[in-house]
């Protein structure tokens, strides 16, 4: 039995589900960002696997995976800067306690 595209898709779906669980259940904003990183990784596995098995002659999957990695770095930098700013003003990083916009 050889490794096919379905194996990679299964791993990617499981990783995506784990990341979603982290996003839905964590209170700490940094932990939510970690869940987002896991989901972005799952997306990259999908892109590269499809590049390998569906269009082996093209390199679009690699290129888009690299662009997503770049944007994930941007997102992590801005998101963590926001967490630091919120922590300095409200002295908490728990998203269920950040409710100053709620009436």
């Amino acid at each position, binding site marked *: 039995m050889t490794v096919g595209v379905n194996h990679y898709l299964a*791993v990617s779906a499981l990783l995506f*589900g784990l990341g979603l*669980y982290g996003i839905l259940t964590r209170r700490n904003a*940094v932990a939510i960002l970690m869940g987002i990183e896991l989901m972005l990784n799952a997306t990259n596995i999908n892109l590269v696997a499809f590049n390998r*098995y569906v269009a082996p*002659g093209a390199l679009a999957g690699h290129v888009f995976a690299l662009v997503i990695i*770049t944007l994930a770095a*941007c997102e992590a930098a*801005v998101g963590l800067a926001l967490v630091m700013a919120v922590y300095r003003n409200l002295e908490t990083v728990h998203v269920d306690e950040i409710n100053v916009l709620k009436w």
Partner: protein
Amino acid sequence: MGELGAFIILALVTLLPAAAVVTSRNLVRAAMSLVPSFLGVAGLFVLLQAEFVAGIQILIYAGAIAVLILFVIMLTAGGTGTAVRQANEQRVVGGLAAAALTAALLALLLRTAWPLAAGSLPRANVAAVGSAFLTTFVLAFEISSVVLLVSLVGALVIARRER
């Protein structure tokens, strides 16, 4: 057979630490568990003949993002203390929603007949990726570089202490 064995090992190296990332009560442990998960994904990229993507994955994810996350956990309170409640009250609902989405994704992805094509990737992968970036995908390349600059400046402005 060797490929299947390597795939199973790398999938476990990816998924088991990922489960620790989303469930561990100690956030430092969760952030450290990100590193083997990212390395496992890099190994999967190598199996998929994407060596350049694997290298960038190790450099940026396992190198930069994990360290950045660790820094912010250390600079903010409430992350390392296991006395703090880390999960909110929708653990059951969130678990059900994540499981439902995973099941739907698995059913959808595994049942679809993909238009598979035989053949392997070109040998000189890195050079081909580089020239693809500067010819076909030059717009995506330039836009992502502008986004990188903007997010760099934005992160500096947001994180700077106000006078």
